C-alpha cells in the first residue's frame, strides 16, 4: 500500500498560479501564432507559399514567446502545449482564407485564436486530470 506522503504526491495538482499561467500562456501563444500567419497571408498572395511561410513564422514567434514564458512556468510545461497550439491556430487563418476567399481582420484573428487557446487549455487540464486518475489506478502502461 502506498504511503500517505506518496498518495498525496499522486493526487497533487499544480498550484493555481501555474494553472492560470498555463492558460494565459496558451492563449497568448495561440494569438501570436495566428497573427504571424495573418501577417504572412497579407503579404503573400500564393496560398500554398503563404501557408508554409506562415507556419514557419508562427513557429518562430511561438518559440520566442515560450522561451520567455518558460522561465516562469517551466520549460516542457510551456513548450509542449505551445507547440500544439502553434500547429492548430494558424490553420484557422488559412482555412478562412481558403474557404471564404478573404483574410480575417486582426481583431477577428485575435478573438478566434484566444478562444481556441482557452479551449485547448481546458482540454489539456481535463487530460491532465484523466492521467492522474489513470496513474492512481496503476493504469500507466497501455
Amino acid at each position: 500500500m502506498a504511503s500517505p506522503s506518496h498518495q498525496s504526491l499522486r493526487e497533487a495538482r499544480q498550484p493555481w498560479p501555474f494553472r492560470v499561467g498555463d492558460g494565459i500562456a496558451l492563449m497568448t501563444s495561440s494569438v501570436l501564432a495566428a497573427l504571424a500567419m495573418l501577417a504572412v497571408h497579407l503579404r503573400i498572395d500564393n496560398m500554398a507559399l503563404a501557408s508554409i511561410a506562415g507556419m514557419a513564422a508562427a513557429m518562430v514567434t511561438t518559440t520566442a514567446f515560450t522561451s520567455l514564458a518558460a522561465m516562469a512556468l517551466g520549460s516542457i510545461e510551456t513548450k509542449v502545449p505551445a507547440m500544439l497550439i502553434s500547429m492548430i491556430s494558424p490553420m484557422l487563418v488559412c482555412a478562412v482564407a481558403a474557404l471564404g476567399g478573404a483574410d480575417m481582420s486582426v481583431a477577428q484573428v485575435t478573438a478566434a485564436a484566444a478562444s481556441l487557446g482557452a479551449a485547448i487549455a481546458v482540454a489539456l487540464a481535463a487530460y491532465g486530470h484523466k492521467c492522474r486518475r489513470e496513474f492512481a489506478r496503476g493504469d500507466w502502461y497501455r
Partner: protein
Amino acid sequence: MTLRQQADPWALRSRFYGLCESSDLRRWPSKAGLFRRACGQTLLIAAGTGLDFRHLPPGDVIAIEFNPAMLARARQRIGEGPARVTLLQADAQSLPFSTHVFDTVITSCTLCSIPNLGEALGEIRRTLKPGGRLLMFEHVRSRHPVLGIVLDLMTLWSRFGGTAMNRKTVAATHAAGFQILRVDSVFLDVIIAAEAKNALSQSVA
C-alpha cells in the same frame, strides 16, 4: 574554452541552464516527494548543474556527471541540501562501480539525454542491489496520439541539443527488467515521477 568544448552542446547548455532552472519552482514538490523515498547508499545519475542536490534527503549520495562544464557548476552546489554529496565524473552507460552496491538510484531528466538508454538501464540494474529502487523524474513520450506526435516533432530539433522528447522511458525500464511500482503524473503524462524495483536475481553480474 577549447574548440571541442564549444562544439559540445552540454558545455554550452551548462552556461544557460540558469535560465531553465525556474522550472524547478514548479517541479520541486514532485521531485522532493519522489526523492524522499531514497534510502541507503544512493546514486544520482547525471547531476547536471547540481540543481537537485537541495531535494535529496539526508544521507550519503554519490552523484555522477559526464560533462566537465556541468560538473564544475555542480561542485559549487554541494552542501545546498541535507544530503552528503560526493561528486564524480562518470558515464551512465559505463558506471565505474561494482555490482549490486546501491540501494537507490535516482535519475532526474536524465534518461532523455543518454545516447543509449538500454545500456544505461542495464548499468543501473547491474549496480542496484536486487530489490533496490530506481526513482525516475523524467519527461517521456505522451500516450496521447496528438501530444505524442507533437513530442516526435519537437525531437527533430531537440535531438541536436542531445535530448529526445519522445522516449518511452517507462516501457524501456520495464523491458530492461525492472518492476514498475508506480508512476505519477507531474505534468499530463509528459513529465512523470516513477518508482521501479530491480527485479534482478543475485546471480546476474
